[in-house]
């Protein structure tokens, strides 16, 4: 049931910022989700419709910007996007990697009407 907790948290932050702006309505919420924080899927729109009902976020749309996991091989310096499976460097096989992107899990912005 973590989707509900995540959705409630998104609502709380969105409302806080919308109220600061004296918004009449929130129309869109933009989320940035990295591939390695992979436990949020589009089903949260369903929870969103439910928890945002009766608030100024009602009927707003969630947008997911999905960021690929970009890896840097610390041995041969190759940069590559991780596919669906966690895998060592495709060029030299090293597992000494730095994760450049993929941990993102944030609310980037909201679009409001005032």
């Amino acid at each position, binding site marked *: 049931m973590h989707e509900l907790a995540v959705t409630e948290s998104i609502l709380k932050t969105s409302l806080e910022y919308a109220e600061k702006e004296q918004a009449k309505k929130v129309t869109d919420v933009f989320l940035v989700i990295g591939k390695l924080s992979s436990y949020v899927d589009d089903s949260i729109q369903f929870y969103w419709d439910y928890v945002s009902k009766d608030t100024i976020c009602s009927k707003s749309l969630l947008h997911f910007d999905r960021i690929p996991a970009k890896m840097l091989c610390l041995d041969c310096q190759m940069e590559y996007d991780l596919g669906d499976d*966690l895998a060592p460097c495709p060029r030299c096989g090293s597992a000494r990697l730095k994760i450049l992107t993929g941990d993102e899990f944030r*609310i980037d912005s909201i679009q409001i*009407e005032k």
Partner: protein
Amino acid sequence: MQVKKVPIVKSILSANDRIATTNQDLLNSHGIFSLNIMASPGAGKTSLILKTIQLLSSQYKIGVIEGDTAPVTIDSDKMTAVGIPSIQINTGGDCHLDAMMIEEALKQLKLTKLDLIIVENVGNLICPAAFKLGTHLNVMIASVPEGDDKPYKYPAMYRGVDVLILNKIDLLPYITFNQDYFLQGVKMLNPCLQTFLVSCKTTEGISVWTDWLAEHLKAFKNQLP
């Protein structure tokens, strides 16, 4: 009507993170070190906590917070049986503990009488690491029978922890578990992860973990104002 885009750029769980920070401040003010133990169901969270208590309770006063989804007291009863104060949290179906639940539990423990609080999270590999509790170290227990592919399947958990304990190593001769493959997955996700290989059953490796923890506790106490 004016349409405007308002930048936020905040962690989705920032409200939880704020309470987690308050929890840690409270723990620090009492000189209490704390662990958040996470694992899939059956990996050995309760067993490891009991072994840790066995080896450290003569030097340190320990308290435990138990998280379960159902209204049961099986784990907290085990702690009470060995003389350890313990608080049971029933999450009412939620698959993880959050900072607010810990805030409530901390109110029920006698903080002036403790050096170490161990939180046993709900058995789950999907999300507990994302919900910060305010504890000082996130500890994950993996176990041999779960299989060697778990870092590959649950990357977020392996990314979000500070310590990894591989339990049930006494079963290695009987189970197909490629330790190199397992550890390679861990290394790719979390290269500096402190890792211990243990068996709660035979106690192999347990004292290496508790010695390390005791050193950490000492260092924590020494850096307090």
